[in-house]
């Protein structure tokens, strides 16, 4: 605790001495928050390849049922269920969470608050290692006998609790273990984030001088921490049901399957905001930089985030309107759910307000940030008919739900991550990404996503239910018109997935051969741009750790030559 700073000195000031470290200790066992952030990022991207391949397979099956899918084969019902289940699980727990929270949280929090590292670097490494273990477990769960778990990502018992029902004794247990282990990793990581942001801010950095993304990641971590506990307890109970023969969730012996739904959605709904908030934080950073504007109401945005977070604890039962809960409860939860539109709409208004009076530069990160706003709005408004109990009777578990939450999760997890990657890439790797390829990638992604999900709204309104692997078994759903919509969605998906190869090429090519980046290529105000690109171990030379004099978004301040005023520049 009281160790003198000088001990650390040689890692900060003379960072280049790191060259005598072996590859393993430098990249695999490093406690440097930046390396750990990149580990999370690359692991998340690797898992995204899985999570992205699955929908290719099952959408091909839906568009051309029964035919052999190229690069895969014929999709059996068992596999279909395992694919949709793990698409959801992988995308949320192994892509959105590690990339949005862990990768950017790790990379950015110390840099943006002017610290040299996380407060607990070794705990940080442990968190990554536990996370990596969970990723290995979920991958193993696909290839065990009887195949991966196929009971949907919500894992409702009794289906998930009894192998005689789900027929995947190995898959379901490993899935549960993987999810639980992943929760532990993020609890550890989250505690580190919050403590770091609370206690280790640079001298002069007050609460409201903290960049929005740091706030958002911390609020998200707190939300996660406060909501996941009951589900961890539930996971233990479900694990016992699966393997020890208890009957917590089996009504045949006094258990209650609805209890799991409460535990799951008490976590599951805040979880949406756990990944949403970091994405909005990223968007806040990017739209201020590229419109050269201060945030329109920094504190209000913060309060809307906190308000959303708190409200999200009181809406969980809107996932269970027709699940057999007391129908009177639905009225209460309709009110709370519709109320969530208040802070979220306010936040979107304020983001749009930030554009007012700006000088907007449409660079790739900005395009992604703007498409986040445009697309997320669709996801937001289509949440209302689902949150309203009356119309949810019809829309519940239909493709309308799928389209709705993909219009929220796609902007959050995919667009949000790309925004951040394009924006912070120069800082992370010291090189610029190719802009032309960036534009190509943006337009392919942002246009085709509508081609995928707008047809799904129509299919949902036409009464098509989720998780059904071949609609030809239902007379009303096997009409040529509806099938045409499915094919449109599938073709759009394939184009979008192909478009991601442009990004992958750009990412890895630019990492090694891109144009060299300066310290502050976007002329941004926050602290991470005041150090080298990429930052050395220790982030700043030890005697040059920044001191903060003002808020993070002082663009276009009157009476200055430059249109930005970095946080660390004294008056």
């Amino acid at each position: 605790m009281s160790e003198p700073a000088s001990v650390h000195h040689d890692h900060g000031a003379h960072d280049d001495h790191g060259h005598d470290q072996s590859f393993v200790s430098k990249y695999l066992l490093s406690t440097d928050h930046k390396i750990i952030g990149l580990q999370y990022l690359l692991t998340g991207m690797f898992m995204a390849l899985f999570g992205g391949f699955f929908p290719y397979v099952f959408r091909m099956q839906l568009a051309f049922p029964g035919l052999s899918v190229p690069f895969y084969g014929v999709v059996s019902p068992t596999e279909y269920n395992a694919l949709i289940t793990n698409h959801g699980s992988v995308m949320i727990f192994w892509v959105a969470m590690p990339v949005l929270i862990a990768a950017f949280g790790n990379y950015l929090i110390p840099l943006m608050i002017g610290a040299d590292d996380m407060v607990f670097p070794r705990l940080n490494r442990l968190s990554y290692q536990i996370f990596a273990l969970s990723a290995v477990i979920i991958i193993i769960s696909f290839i065990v006998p009887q195949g991966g778990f196929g009971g949907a990502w919500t894992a409702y018992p009794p289906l998930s609790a009894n192998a005689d029902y789900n027929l995947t004794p190995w898959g379901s247990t490993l899935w549960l273990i993987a999810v639980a282990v992943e929760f532990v990793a993020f609890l550890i990581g989250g505690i580190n984030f919050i403590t770091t942001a609370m206690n280790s801010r640079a001298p002069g950095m007050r609460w409201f001088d903290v960049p929005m993304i740091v706030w958002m990641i911390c609020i998200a971590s707190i939300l996660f921490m406060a909501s996941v506990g009951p589900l961890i307890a539930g996971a233990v109970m479900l694990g016992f049901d699966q393997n020890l023969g208890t009957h917590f969730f089996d009504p045949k012996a006094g258990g209650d399957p609805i209890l799991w739904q409460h535990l799951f959605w008490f976590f599951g709904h805040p979880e949406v905001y756990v990944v949403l908030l970091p994405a909005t934080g990223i968007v806040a950073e990017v739209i201020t930089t590229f419109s050269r504007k201060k945030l329109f109401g920094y504190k209000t945005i913060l309060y809307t985030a906190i308000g959303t977070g708190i409200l999200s604890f009181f809406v969980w039962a809107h996932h269970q309107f027709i699940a057999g809960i007391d129908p009177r409860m639905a009225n209460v939860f309709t009110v709370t759910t519709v109320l969530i539109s208040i802070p979220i709409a306010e936040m979107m208004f304020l983001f749009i307000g930030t554009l007012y009076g700006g000088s907007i530069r449409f660079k790739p990160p900005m395009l992604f940030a703007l498409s986040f706003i445009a697309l997320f709005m669709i996801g937001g408004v289509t949440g209302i008919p689902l949150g309203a109990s009356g119309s949810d009777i019809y829309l519940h578990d239909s493709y309308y739900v799928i389209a709705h939450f993909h219009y929220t999760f796609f902007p959050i997890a995919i667009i949000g991550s790309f925004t951040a990657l394009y924006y912070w890439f120069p800082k992370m790797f010291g090189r610029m990404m190719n802009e032309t390829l960036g534009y190509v990638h943006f337009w392919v992604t942002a246009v085709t996503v509508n081609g995928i999900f707008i047809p799904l709204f129509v299919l949902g309104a036409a009464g098509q239910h989720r998780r059904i692997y071949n609609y030809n078994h239902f007379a009303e759903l096997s009409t040529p018109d509806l099938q045409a919509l499915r094919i449109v969605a599938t073709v759009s998906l394939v184009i979008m997935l192909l478009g991601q190869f442009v990004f992958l090429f750009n990412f890895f090519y630019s990492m090694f051969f891109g144009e060299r980046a300066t310290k502050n290529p976007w002329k941004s105000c926050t602290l991470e741009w005041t150090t080298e690109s990429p930052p050395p171990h220790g982030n700043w030379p030890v005697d040059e750790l920044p001191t903060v004099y003002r808020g993070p978004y002082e663009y276009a301040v009157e009476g200055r030559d430059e249109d930005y005023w970095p946080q660390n520049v004294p008056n």
Partner: protein
Amino acid sequence: MHGKPIANTRSVMGIPTAKLAVYWVIGSEIVIFGGLIASYLMHRLAHPEWAFDAAHTDWRIGAVNTFVLLTSSLFAVQAHHYAHKGDGATAAKWLYLTTGGGGLFLMFKAYEWSVEIGHGYTITAAPFWSFYYTAAGIHASHIIAGMIIMMFIAQTAKKNEELHRVENIGLYWHFVDLVWIFLFPLLYIAK
């Protein structure tokens, strides 16, 4: 491995970083146990017939264990007291005593469970027993984890190093104790 980062030595909030983190750990643990206890209560209130099973728990062992844990918490306070004064060696002794309390708790627990299992009240016997073993088992695993960490901290405290950790493990131990205070009436007394 390397020295501590400067970040670790900062304390903008005025609370030592490690202590702040322990508070957050306890916060996250509260929701875990909160979820478990809430699930149990929901079931218990809906099934008055569980009292029949609950009557077979041995409240005397539970009471003794409550006493043992409370005493060990007192020892932890003592350890903190000496650590605060800079007397690492004495603090370590008190920590060993605290660990001993945890060990005694586990021994009683093991005896109690073996008797109950001997009577056929296994984890699958009835929903009450499922909750009983799950809740007490998760709690016991916290006791074990606390004991292991405490032994490590006592080792360093003996050398008068990292004395701030004595208080932090004490906080954790009080929390584990508190959970038991909730579990004891819910599992043993409520008939």
